[in-house]
């Protein structure tokens, strides 16, 4: 039997729309200090570190070289993943399984407020020869996907708007969230159109913050933590990048990533065997599309489930009790770090007013945002 790996410490700064008082260094330092304190370790006890960075978002070429200091990782084994924090989690997990070490650290950061030309940066991710000359807005990609998803599933505009209302309300009682507000369906439906059917309220605002977690192999985990959170399954997948050839209605990348994680965790009936999920809702409709892709709902059933309150904190299958990207903020490469953080907090019973009852298994999912087709999934149990 394979070794078991647990998260034995997790630290965060919380998430704010801006963080003008600190640099990225102090942000990560705070999250790392908290994570190490919780795990009862010092950086010298860590066998290897995996950071997460995207050069264009950081504004540094080879941004990974700027990661060691604030993790206590100077002159230690460290590398960065250009992807989502759950990719980094997978990398650290594999290092433990392969015997490279017993204690690993995973880091993610968002300084989204420092990017002044985000739209241009995302457009720069389009194919330069046959997409960029058309000068489309990055939100065009989300709008087209939303339209196709609604057509294929019969999901209504109101059902999608309900996701925004729910997540922004959940964020109001989450001390870590930056964008909680109390609004009704009409407020969302009447907000300014960006790329029809996508409106301004369907798009997550940004946040800054950092998350650092400590992973340990079973024996070490039990010695370090009274509440280890076990990584039972992990998966990742990328669809073709082509805007012309990708599947616009279904998030196949999320389906395949989830299937990989389910297989590892021995999960056959995700809706029954998983109690709740923190999933990517960078655009409102993505929450529903991702739920269906991961077989938590059948195709076309995520909207109706949301409409009757089935995904609320007291619902049958709570989704994004933290408030998700819509309520906490879009954290870019840190989005997966945030979903893992919230699943860990729920499984330990540390989320205060947003605490779910009797939860033993949660799903953390992420997506790399437009224009990507890359998804990640982690299944965690207490």
């Amino acid at each position: 039997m394979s070794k078991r790996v647990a998260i034995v410490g997790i630290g965060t700064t919380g998430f704010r729309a801006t963080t003008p008082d600190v640099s990225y260094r102090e942000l990560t330092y705070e999250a790392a200090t908290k994570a190490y304190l919780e795990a009862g370790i010092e950086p010298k006890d860590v066998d290897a570190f995996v950071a997460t960075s995207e050069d264009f978002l950081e504004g540094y070429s080879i941004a990974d070289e700027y990661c060691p200091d604030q993790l206590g990782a100077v002159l230690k084994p460290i590398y960065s993943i250009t992807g989502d924090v759950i990719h980094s989690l997978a990398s650290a997990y594999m290092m433990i399984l392969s015997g490279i070490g017993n204690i690993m650290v995973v880091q993610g950061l968002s300084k989204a407020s420092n990017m002044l030309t985000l739209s241009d940066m995302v457009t720069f991710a389009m194919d330069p020869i046959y997409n960029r000359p058309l000068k489309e807005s990055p939100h065009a990609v989300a709008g087209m996907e939303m339209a196709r998803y609604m057509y294929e599933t019969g999901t209504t505009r109101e059902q999608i708007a309900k996701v925004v209302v729910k997540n922004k309300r959940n964020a109001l009682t989450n001390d870590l969230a930056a964008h909680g507000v109390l609004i009704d369906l009409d407020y969302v439906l009447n907000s300014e159109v960006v790329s029809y059917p996508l409106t301004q309220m369907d798009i997550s605002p940004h946040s800054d913050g950092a998350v650092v977690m400590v992973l340990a192999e079973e024996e070490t985990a039990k010695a370090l933590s009274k509440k280890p959170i076990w990584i039972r399954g992990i998966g990742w997948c990328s669809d073709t990048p082509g805007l012309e050839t990708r599947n616009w209605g279904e998030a196949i990348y999320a389906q395949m990533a989830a299937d990989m994680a389910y297989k590892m965790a021995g999960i056959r009936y995700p809706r029954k065997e998983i109690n709740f999920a923190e999933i990517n809702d960078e655009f409102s409709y993505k929450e529903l599309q991702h739920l269906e892709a991961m077989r938590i709902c059948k195709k076309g059933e995520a909207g109706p489930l949301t409409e009757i309150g089935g995904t609320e904190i007291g619902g049958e299958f709570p989704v994004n009790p933290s408030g998700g990207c819509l309520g906490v903020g879009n954290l870019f490469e840190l989005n997966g770090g945030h979903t893992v953080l919230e699943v860990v907090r729920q499984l330990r019973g540390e989320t205060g007013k947003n605490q779910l009852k009797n939860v033993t298994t949660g799903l953390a999912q992420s997506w790399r945002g437009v224009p990507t087709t890359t998804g990640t999934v982690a299944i965690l149990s207490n």
Partner: protein
Amino acid sequence: MELTEKMVANSATKLSAEEILEGKVLSVKWEPKLKYAWDNGPAIGRYLAELKNGKIIGKKCDKCHRIMIPPRMFCELCWVPTGEWVYVKDTGIVNTWIIGHVDWKAKRLDIKGGVRPITLSIIEIDGASKGMGILHHLGEVDPWKIHRGMKVKAVWKPPEERTGSITDIKYFKPIK
């Protein structure tokens, strides 16, 4: 099969810069707008503010006793918050340097035509711990007379021209 020069000549498409510039082949011009407003945080923020005052400030680690520039809020080696702020001198010694014949855009300088080579240096600052220094230019010196351990001092811009930037120091010049 071995790749020969003839095979490459027969298979490769040769393009001149002119053909691209004249639009004879499909080309795409795209200037990315990448703008950032980095938050400096308390350490680098004060470092820059003090440069505007004509001073160089560091921060001390109470555990390893290093006086570090640029200052930082935590010691990356001891993993503890740093302690007091410490002003260091604006003098130091040359650790290493170059006599640069190309500029930062990799353009060759007309050295024979009288353009001064770029003399970028790492300067170990007096009052800071060993290994702590400033990357800056050397000036008022014959590039070929720069030597390891040469004593230098900052030449500051006049106060009204300083902006809170590393360029508030124009360069470092030799002193006795």
